[in-house]
């Protein structure tokens, strides 16, 4: 045995070493080609796929044509975690990628220097026009404050470049069924008699199922209630874990939410709301006789109506804004979300890309592609739905983020599941809230 090896050895080793060297040479050659540190390449991570990715490529085309800078896009739905690992390990980061949503992460990445200010990327002139042209709620912290990690503002500096936005908490209806005027208050909404409108069965439709993220549509509904019922201050403090779930304001929010999903108000009863996927929740709007009058959902749902039922925005269906909860001082609170980019490597190419994405020309391409609002106020929309959504975004006093998305992830999961549980069994409300307090106490600590 040993002799065989001995005879084989010298040749094998020579061959092996040769292969290794070759492999090493190839692999280093291969990786440098993908890095964006040069002035003609920029690497971008995004969570977009499908049509959204296609729209993004369309947005980038004029940029590449004009500057010759190649944009290497990677669809990465786990980018925050991977970037966090990259920062911890000191490995390569993408040049441009979405910033983190967790406020503590935003602060920590800024202090570590991983996030580069948008001010430097855009230069002072363009930065000023960016602030002037973008929806104020996306760039301006509440008056007198220098921080709002939810929109990426730390110590007065901006770390998110806002590019797209959506408005949540809209009530969608079939124009052929609901012919009345939009109710001004939530009480007026609940007082409607659905059978007067084409024999509809219930006031609301709902669908809370969304695979592993089930419950988020319900959380949008309660968020829109709480921010208008108890105000942005309590709402934001609650997200940050400074207001308990058993607090009367939050409990009132849950109780009001339950009015939207009780057996008599929601189509098919609570089990139907729990079992129905959010994307199909609005289908009964278009059945005959209609299952319900309204579905509460964000702007994006228009695409699903069109896809599922072949109906057209503006002619077949429309929406009205969330009615007042009876507190006029909080009527300017609007629930929305946004897409943003942060700069992780301050290269000339990355700066140029962000400068381009902040322009009206770039964002108009997104607006034309449909399915979203841009972040700039003065874009034009062909779609009547987005034209009106833009008005709502523009009129917003505070554009408030969705609560669950900005809670620690275990809090988020417990929050979403609590909404499913109280929908299933409203009698469990108090025990659910007490349990959420326990989760809250454990989630906001580091142990």
């Amino acid at each position, binding site marked *: 045995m040993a002799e065989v090896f*001995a005879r084989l050895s010298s040749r094998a080793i020579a061959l092996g070493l040769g292969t290794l060297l070759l492999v090493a040479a190839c692999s280093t050659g291969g*990786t440098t080609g993908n890095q964006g540190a040069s002035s003609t390449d920029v690497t971008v991570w995004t969570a977009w796929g499908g049509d959204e990715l296609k729209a993004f490529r369309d947005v980038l085309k004029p940029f590449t044509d004009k500057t010759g800078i190649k944009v290497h896009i990677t669809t990465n739905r786990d980018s925050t975690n991977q970037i966090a690992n990259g920062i911890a390990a000191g490995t390569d980061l993408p040049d441009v990628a979405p910033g983190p949503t967790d406020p503590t992460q935003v602060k920590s990445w800024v202090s570590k220097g991983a996030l580069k200010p948008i001010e430097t990327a855009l230069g002072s002139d363009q930065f000023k026009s960016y602030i002037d042209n973008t929806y104020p709620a996306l760039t301006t912290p509440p008056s007198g404050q220098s921080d709002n990690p939810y929109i990426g503002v730390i110590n007065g500096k901006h770390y998110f470049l806002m590019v797209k936005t959506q408005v949540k908490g809209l009530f969608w209806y079939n124009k052929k069924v609901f012919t009345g005027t939009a109710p001004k208050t939530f009480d007026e909404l609940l007082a409607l008699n659905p059978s007067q409108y084409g024999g509809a069965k219930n006031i609301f439709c709902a669908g809370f199922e969304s695979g592993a993220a089930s419950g988020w549509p319900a959380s949008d509904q309660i968020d829109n209630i709480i921010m208008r019922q108890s105000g942005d201050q309590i709402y934001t403090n609650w997200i940050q874990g400074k207001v308990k779930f058993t607090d009367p304001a939050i409990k009132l929010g849950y109780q009001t939410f339950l009015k939207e999903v009780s057996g008599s108000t929601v189509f098919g009863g609570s089990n139907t709301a729990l*079992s129905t996927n959010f994307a199909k929740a609005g289908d009964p709007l278009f059945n005959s006789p209609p299952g319900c009058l309204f579905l509460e959902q964000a702007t994006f749902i228009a695409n699903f109506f069109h896809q599922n039922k072949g109906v057209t925005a503006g002619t077949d269906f429309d929406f009205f804004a969330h009615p007042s909860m009876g507190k006029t001082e909080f009527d300017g609170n609007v629930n929305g979300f946004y897409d943003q980019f942060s700069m992780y490597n301050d290269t000339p190419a990355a700066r140029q890309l962000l400068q381009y994405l902040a322009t009206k020309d770039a964002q108009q391409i997104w607006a034309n592609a449909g399915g979203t609002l841009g972040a700039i106020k003065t874009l034009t929309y062909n779609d009547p739905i987005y034209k009106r959504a833009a008005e709502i975004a523009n009129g917003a006093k505070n554009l408030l983020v969705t609560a669950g998305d900005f809670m620690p992830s275990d809090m988020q999961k417990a929050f979403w599941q609590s909404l499913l549980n109280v929908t299933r069994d409203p009698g469990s409300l108090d025990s659910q809230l007490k349990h959420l307090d326990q989760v809250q106490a454990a989630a906001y600590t580091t142990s």
Partner: protein
Amino acid sequence: MDQIITAAVAVVAVPLVLLGYIVLGERVIEALPDRLQVAIRPYFWALPAIGFATIFMIYPLVRTVIISFRNSEDSDWIGFANYKYFFTFPDTLTSLRNSLLWLIFYTSISVILGLVIAILLDRVRYESLAKIAIFLPVPISAVAASIIWKFMFDYQAPGTPQTGTLNALIGTIGHEPVAWLINSTTNNAALIFVGIWTVTGFCMVIISASLKAISTEVLEAARMDGANEFQIVRLVVTPLLWPTITVVGTTMIINALKTFDIVYVMTNGAYDTDVIATQMFSQLQHSHYGRAAAVGVVLFIAIVPLLVVNIRRFQQQEEQR
């Protein structure tokens, strides 16, 4: 391109390095006196395997135990706080209860069904056909099986056409649809049922193979002595199958304890269906590494006795040969 190079490195370079280690090492050892050669050679050959096991199994194990006593930032010792959390927090207690349900019902039903089916099919002519039918779910990945069953359990508003097979069926006898995965009396049972459906075929095949190994002479002798078929199954076949049943059973217990995919895909732990493994995963997801490690350690401690039983069983079988 990069992936191909990485694969090439793994397939070509790693064995080459190992080959180089053996060739060069053997040369050195051959130069030693004979007695020393005999003493050193086994360790020399076993070293790479021990090295791999240390790096990829023992080190992570030790590290997990250490992490379970530290905070999520890994910056401070916090004693048994993570374990206290695991054994006192309502969510983790629910997952512990559910894992126990899985352990009892998933294991017993799948093994008993496997045994009964194997014995029954042993006595019919269309055996292989029936076996194929029962084995069919085994190669389906748990995720695909979960999605299939999600459709089966589907629920639509009462009074509208039911797209879920089960609700359509009970609708034909005029029963209201049941929200199988939401209703707390049915949801855990529904999930465990899916688990049993995917694994019964496996239990059956293993038990059936060992059943075929029982010589017909033994059975004939029993019949000659006047035993009826029930007595034969109870007093002759089952004891002879016992070693196999233990191995299948312990494997199923381990499966039950580490159940993850079915729960994750079908409910993600909503409506009180979490199990230990999904709990560990969500702790990881929420960056509570200490708590996740504590769950892992508890799970490991629960599985160790079963591993010991299994290894003993293997050793006994080795000795019998």
